[in-house]
């Protein structure tokens, strides 16, 4: 598993836990969990939709002599 998907997995777990928390709790904490859950789920789901990279040297910035 490459690094992008590993990060995605962690964030997906956090996002799902927060969603579970939203269902369980009441009051102000719901808002807090919602704010954490949305971006985590966005990245977590997205990281499994994107294709695998086809670059030769993944992660190298295209600069002079680098």
């Amino acid at each position: 598993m490459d690094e992008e998907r590993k990060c995605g997995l962690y964030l997906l777990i956090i996002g799902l836990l927060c969603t579970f928390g939203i269902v369980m709790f009441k009051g102000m904490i719901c808002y807090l969990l919602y704010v954490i859950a949305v971006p985590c789920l966005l990245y977590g789901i997205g990281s499994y939709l994107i294709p695998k990279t086809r670059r030769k040297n993944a992660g190298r910035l295209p600069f002079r002599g680098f």
Partner: protein
Amino acid sequence: MISSIIGQLFGIVPFGDIVFGFSEFSIIGFVVALIFTIVVYLTKPEKQLEAQKFRVEDKLEVVSLEELKIRRMMAIVCGIATAGAMLTYDLFDYALFLTLVGIANIGIVSAVKKDWVLNASYQYGLIAMIATLPLFGSAGMILAKTGTLSLFELPKIPTSLLFEKIIFAAGMAGETGIAPFYASKAEMFRAPGSPYILMIHLSSLLLIVRTVEILLTI
């Protein structure tokens, strides 16, 4: 009165002289400062690509380990001081936290081996030291005038504190290095090691907002 500025007040923790208060505003600030401190602790510094004179290639700059450790520690101290400054409801405490943030900011860049960065931090240090005088001076004047430094008591006392507020704002401006004193701090942001530099920026911006809140309250 006080809740018309900071939102709902959830509770206070009387901790001797140091009173911590939890309102909507301070909780958000506290959580943000803590989360950033954790992220800064976890993050490895980035490597920068720099253009060189008379050469075609760019140079890759890597932050060494001994430079990294002391800077990370100072960044964490800075984060904890910012988190404390968000919660405290005592003017003297707040001024202390503000100075601590100023000291930690210099500490963050002190290990960088680049002379322009060290120059900038030296100038910023001078400004920060000079700014402690109006900061603590105004806190002392407020104490002498009203007999209290608690931010819960101060709004109830019907005294005009305009002059003290202006001095306090000037002290804060010097300590966090905003607009008029900005030139002293600008070169510090070019140092390598983005998470630590981010902490400088974060602490000063959060403290500005908090100072605005305090000045509107008292």
